[in-house]
């Protein structure tokens, strides 16, 4: 048992962080808000070159072949940097394509020449299978994509955009995300991977938790920075316990979220019987951490936190999207009560 990163993992952390700070910082996300696509194509291809979309995929399937825990380290950084674009959907789609034997599509997703959007059913999460998909869908970041990946408890499907009807753009609460509504009527998946074959859903749950944990950390950091430097009544506002204590709580929430996420990722990597519990617990704890830290950060930042110019609200809005997709916290919570946990 050792939850500290290895030397290789430290390398993943520092190189992805350096790349994101340089190429996809929040400032870049902000610029992309008003662009037709929220993807920086050059940065996208560069991240593909670093193997981001196949980090957790076996080498024989074209991936890098490291664990989900390594992938979680990556998505934590993506969350922290609030990079926009379908990183998670493309990662999951590449996995589904590769596992299902669609090597060509997998290769193109992995090399960054195509991307996949995320399809989220609007009602029940597990109401689809290999035989067809029915119902209303929300599509996230499905701009300039030919496929979307739909992931539920029972399995994961790749759907061609052409199999969907009534695709309508809708303004998303997160201005840096892209949202479309669509409907599927007996839409036949291009590929389907059952949960028993590969836990795509739980991987997605864990990686969304990782991104949320990274966001919770970023919100803590920008609050602490403000508390150290903003002067009111002659002192840094961080001298006030009304500022200091919320910052401390942000830290504890961020630590809890990230620790549980690592635990979940390793539980999946090591095939523990309680991996589902840990993944859903990570999602619940990380969603709460990101949302609460966003609210606390906006309050600590005061008037500045309420401006569009400050980044806090972008994290808050992204947290709504990430908390909802791939295992909505309310739904996950109901499941948590009955899942077994090992000591």
């Amino acid at each position, binding site marked *: 048992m050792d939850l500290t990163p290895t030397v290789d993992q430290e390398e993943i952390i520092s190189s992805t962080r350096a790349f994101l700070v340089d190429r996809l910082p929040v400032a870049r996300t902000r610029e992309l808000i008003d662009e037709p696509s929220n993807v920086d194509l050059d940065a996208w291809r560069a991240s593909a070159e670093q193997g981001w979309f196949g980090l957790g995929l076996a080498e024989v399937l074209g991936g890098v072949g490291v664990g989900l825990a390594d992938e979680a380290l990556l998505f934590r950084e993506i969350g922290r940097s609030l990079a926009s674009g379908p990183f998670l959907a493309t990662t999951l789609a590449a996995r589904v394509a590769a596992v299902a034997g669609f090597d060509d599509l997998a290769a193109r997703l992995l090399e960054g020449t195509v991307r996949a959007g995320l399809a989220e059913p609007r*009602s029940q999460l597990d109401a689809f299978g290999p035989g067809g998909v029915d119902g209303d869908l929300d599509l996230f970041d499905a701009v300039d994509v030919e496929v979307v990946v739909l992931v539920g408890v029972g399995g994961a499907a790749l759907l061609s955009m052409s199999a969907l009807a009534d695709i309508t753009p809708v303004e998303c609460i997160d201005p840096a995300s892209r949202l479309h*509504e669509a409907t599927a009527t007996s839409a036949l998946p291009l590929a389907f991977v059952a949960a028993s074959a590969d836990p795509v859903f739980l991987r997605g749950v864990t990686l969304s938790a990782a991104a949320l944990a990274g966001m919770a950390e970023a919100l803590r950091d920008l609050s602490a920075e403000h508390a150290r430097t903003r002067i009111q009544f002659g002192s840094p506002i961080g001298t*006030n316990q009304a500022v200091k204590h919320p910052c401390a709580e942000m830290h504890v929430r961020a630590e809890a979220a990230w620790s549980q996420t690592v635990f979940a990722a390793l539980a999946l990597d090591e095939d523990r019987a309680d991996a589902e519990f840990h993944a859903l617990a990570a999602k619940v704890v990380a969603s709460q951490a990101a949302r609460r830290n966003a609210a606390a950060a906006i309050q600590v930042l005061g*008037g500045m936190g309420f401006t569009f110019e400050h980044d806090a609200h972008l994290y808050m809005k992204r947290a*709504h999207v990430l908390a909802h997709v791939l295992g*909505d916290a309310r739904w996950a919570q109901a499941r948590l009560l009955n899942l077994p946990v090992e000591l």
Partner: protein
Amino acid sequence: MELQFTKAEQEFRDEVRTWLSEHVPRERRPRDLRAARDFDLAWQRTQYDAGWAGIAWPVEYGGRGLSLTQQLIWFEEYARTGLVSIDSRFVGLAHAGPTLIARATPEQQAQHLPPILRGDVVWCQGFSEPEAGSDLASLRTRAIVDGDDLVVTGQKVWTSFAPIADWQELLVRTDPDAPKHKGITWVICDMRSPGIEVRPLRTIPGSAEFAEVFYDEVRIPTANVVGAVNDGWRVAMSTLSFERGTAFTIDQVQLAMTVDRLIELARQRKGFDGRPLIADEAIAGELALARAEVSALRAMTYAGVSRNLTSAEPGPEGSMFKLFWSELAQRVDRLAMDVLGAGGLRRRDESPDAEWIERYLSSYANSIGGGTSEIQRNIIAERVLGLPR
């Protein structure tokens, strides 16, 4: 102690309700700021013409001079119409006007008070600065006396309605060497003066209801100073509130209506399991508690107004109300997002969900604007409970 209103007050309520039902604008208040200004001022003129303007102002300043209870009734009935509680008339009617009544010269009063009541002008506030938020006394916008003018250079922020305002109640530092609270002057600034630049400030909901105002050697006649030069802090602190807590009822009534609409929404919307969300005790319990607490908020408002009926000085009810209201309203607005579920991700003008999302995004300001919750807690603890600073 009694809860019921007198017969005369009940008749007054009927009169107000009837008049409002017949005259309240039918069309939706425009989103565009200039169009909203026209809308607000036309509505003020309608009230003025019917004798409802300056309802809480003393008669000698053109007001109706009604009783505090009548004022409460007016606000309750006004809130029930669903009109927004703070529009571009707000600073003039509720803040700058009362300050002028308290401290301005007869000439200043004659010039400015009638246009406010008639709906001719929009006022804005120029208090907060980037480096002087909660700590207002640290303001740095500088004014140098040059002959008959103050020459103002600096920046204000969080100025509602600045792009459509005619006048501004402006606080400037006229003596940089005096201690913080000294050396500040309260002055009437013509927003069309050369050297003023107004930049809209976008906020969390994405709209630009606020602005930053930049002053580059703006000349303001010293005749516009209210009170004395360097005595502006006292002028600002002496702003009379003729409403004495009754205006809180607007927020209370509107929050009560919001809670009931949210209960209705929870009856209609279904959760993951297909049951209506109101059948989920976690949601239902929160809603019921909100209903009880919004009722307590009314009771607190009534209690505060009752105390103000007889006391000389309004108490710290303002801080208490603000704190309780802002925390409760934020909880309600966050709960609405839970009720909306996936709908809460979609901002679509034509959807009924859009308004809930807007409310939610705006609600982050509840505990910041007009004195943060932290400042309110300080005030209550220090002024009411006597805790040390």
